[in-house]
């Protein structure tokens, strides 16, 4: 059973190897190989999905493989999945064939190299989620940069070189900090890089823990990206080819939030508690700031890129809430963002393929011309703004209620400001829809746009189905995350108890505040109308 995970990791790489042996002037063969291998990876990964035991008694990491690699340095090939990694792995294996199919007409030059880059990228992404060895994680983490650098730099738009160098350097510099921290952690943990062992045996002074947390956190925060480390994202998204944007938004950004969930938070819980108000503040700033940026963009891709800053801010806020609802919502919102923003980039890519422009002003009234693209775009928009019944609502609702109920300092204020991001989200997305699809069709170039082709229907339909299924029946997607969320909460509860033992005057900071508030909604004298009662609870 365990070998299945390694098969899923390396199947795409095998496809890339096969492509390397096929002649470069046979683009159809490369497209076929890439699609076949990515579909095979999806098919095999279904065995992981159905084989995963999401009960509380099940082992934390499943499908584990542990082989020696560089034993003298304590580095091993250790892979395994918890529920959250499983969800993100499934997102990756589902999204990649869609992305590959979407490039069949968009990419006509250097198809061989393009497909190899995409397949190598898929292996690196799956490996990053599956790795349980710090060095192995770092290797996969950095391996993602190379194909992405090429995807943007070779197949991108006009300003691609600037964007790709910026993307590479920005994320690389931050990752090097993480490498230093990884080495330090391994030395402190007795010379092993194994994640599970390190997490158990790591004991570092509070001062060092703070620095280690920051080193990890900065690497992840750049990837998320959190305000104010986000400016590489609009450039990379705008210049990348559609496939690059979809992968970047769909999976790569989640590496940052996943990194917080898997590494920065559970390895250094005390430091995470210490920096939590700051990170939550940056997350909320990111939510509103990203939304405001989206409001004034003239370029469709730039608008969607800034909306990612806003949405990922929600994910970070959910993680920092340190409540079951917040963490679950954060994990769910990672998936949602992958689906809805991935779909948005696919649709924008389809328009770009037809008109070769991303400028919003170049469009207008094209719903009459391309009714099916318009329909899909509106559905995806509604998911992106979190309309009830779509996946986005479930995530945002869990995050906001989790934050509101949590023990984050001034939780009420924080969640109220974050909620304005939901409103602004509706404003910029609906304005985009109105300006692109509705109103008068006054640009002559838009008169003869073809609607969705059969291939494009196959590309976009799974995304729409995912939006509806994840919105109406979220339970199957929430269930695998629950054990991981509970474990992380328990880790933080233990850390909080330790801190309170050392300093009895310290208020509790993890989990949900007493039912006072929840019940208080009905019970006016002690509830909402009495903020003082709340203030004494979380000073």
């Amino acid at each position: 059973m365990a070998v299945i995970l390694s098969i899923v990791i390396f199947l795409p790489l095998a496809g890339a190897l096969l492509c390397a042996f096929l002649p470069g002037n046979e683009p159809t063969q490369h497209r076929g190989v890439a699609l076949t291998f990515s579909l095979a990876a999806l098919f095999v990964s279904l065995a992981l999905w159905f084989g995963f035991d999401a009960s509380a008694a099940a082992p934390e990491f499943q499908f584990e493989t542990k082989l020696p690699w560089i034993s003298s340095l304590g580095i091993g090939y250790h892979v395994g999945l918890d529920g959250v990694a499983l969800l993100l792995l499934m997102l990756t294996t589902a999204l990649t064939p869609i992305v590959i199919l979407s490039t069949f007409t968009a990419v006509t030059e250097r198809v061989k190299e393009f497909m190899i880059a995409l397949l190598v990228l898929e292996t690196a992404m799956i490996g990053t989620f599956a790795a349980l060895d710090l060095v192995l994680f770092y290797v996969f983490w950095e391996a993602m940069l190379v194909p992405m650098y090429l995807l943007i730099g070779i197949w991108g738009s006009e300003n691609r070189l600037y964007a790709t160098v910026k993307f590479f350097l920005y994320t690389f510099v931050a990752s090097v900090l993480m490498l230093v921290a990884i080495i330090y952690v391994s030395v402190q943990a007795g010379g092993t890089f194994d994640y599970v062992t390190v997490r158990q045996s790591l004991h570092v002074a509070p001062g060092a823990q703070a620095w280690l947390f920051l080193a990890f956190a900065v690497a992840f925060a750049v990837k998320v990206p959190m305000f104010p480390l986000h400016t590489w994202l609009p450039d990379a998204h705008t210049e990348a080819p559609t496939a690059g944007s979809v992968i970047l938004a769909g999976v790569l950004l989640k590496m940052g939030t996943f990194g917080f969930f898997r590494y920065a938070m559970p390895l250094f819980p005390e430091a995470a508690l210490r920096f939590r108000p700051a990170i939550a503040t940056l997350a909320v700033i990111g939510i509103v700031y990203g939304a405001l940026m989206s409001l004034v963009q003239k370029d469709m891709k730039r608008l969607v890129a800034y909306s990612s800053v806003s949405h990922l801010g929600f994910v970070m806020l959910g993680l920092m809430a340190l409540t079951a609802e917040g963490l679950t919502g954060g994990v769910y919102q990672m998936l949602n963002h992958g689906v809805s923003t991935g779909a948005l980039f696919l649709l924008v890519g389809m328009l770009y393929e037809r008109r070769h422009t991303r400028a919003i002003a170049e469009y207008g009234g094209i719903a009459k011309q391309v009714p099916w693209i318009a329909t899909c775009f509106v559905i995806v928009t509604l998911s992106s703004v979190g309309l009830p019944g779509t996946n986005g609502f479930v995530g945002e609702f869990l995050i906001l209620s989790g934050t509101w109920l949590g023990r984050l300092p001034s939780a009420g204020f924080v969640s109220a400001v974050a909620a304005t991001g939901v409103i602004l989200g509706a404003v910029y997305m609906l304005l985009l829809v109105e300006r692109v699809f509705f109103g008068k069709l006054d640009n002559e170039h838009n008169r003869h746009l073809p609607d969705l082709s059969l291939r494009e229907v196959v590309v976009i339909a799974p995304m729409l189905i995912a939006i509806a299924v994840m919105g109406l029946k979220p339970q199957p997607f929430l269930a695998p995350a629950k054990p991981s969320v509970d474990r992380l909460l328990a880790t933080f509860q233990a850390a909080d108890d330790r801190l309170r033992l050392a300093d009895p005057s310290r208020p509790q900071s993890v989990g949900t505040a007493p039912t006072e508030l929840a019940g208080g909604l009905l019970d006016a004298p002690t509830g909402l109308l009495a903020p003082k009662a709340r203030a004494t609870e979380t000073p």
Partner: protein
Amino acid sequence: MQSPASSAWPQAGLVAYVLGTLAAAGTSFYMVRLYALTFVGKPRSAKAEHAHESSKLMTVPLWVLAILSVVALFLGLPEIHSLGELGEVFKRFTEPVFAQANETLGAEGHHALWPFAAAWVIAVVFGGLAWAMYAGGLQNVPEAFATRFRGTYRLVQDKFRIDELYEVLVIEPVKRTAYWLWRVGDAFLIDGVLVNGAAKTADFLSKAFRFVQNGDIQRYVAIMAAAAAVILWTVLGLGGR
């Protein structure tokens, strides 16, 4: 009117009644005005001259709705014993819905007839006024009112300028903030000064150092010789003393 429910704010019931009554007065006024301007008098446009009855598809549902609206009148009649079972049908129908609220609020069911009569009086008076102003003998009043109270007339015509207020107070500030935040905060400060600034600093430093590392061997040797002389001078010779 006075009930324990309004104990927190005793005038609540009265204020609600007055506001509701004003709304009712306005409703009957504007509905009669609408009817008068649409169906009564001479056609005011070429299109109106050629207006014709709509198809059965439209008229039949309208008949049904018209009949039902009259039926609704009987459902809402107050309890008058001479009417027998007809009175307060709607109230009895909705009683279970409000049962709990009535219990909590301690609302006593005492029935006065005068609000029913007042409602009718208001409807008839304001409807009649509208009829007089738009179909009857007072047809010069609207014009006179509009000229006399120009400001009020324009304010009402502009929907009290709520949209404009909203535009000024919310929409424009948000747009402006977003734009300046983007130009100054994002593009200039964060991306320009910090991110590209770091790149430009590295670029500047490397260019500065490149000036010395120009690959000219003779110059390297000359600098080496000069440096060696300085070191020797410092260590062995005059500089050491």
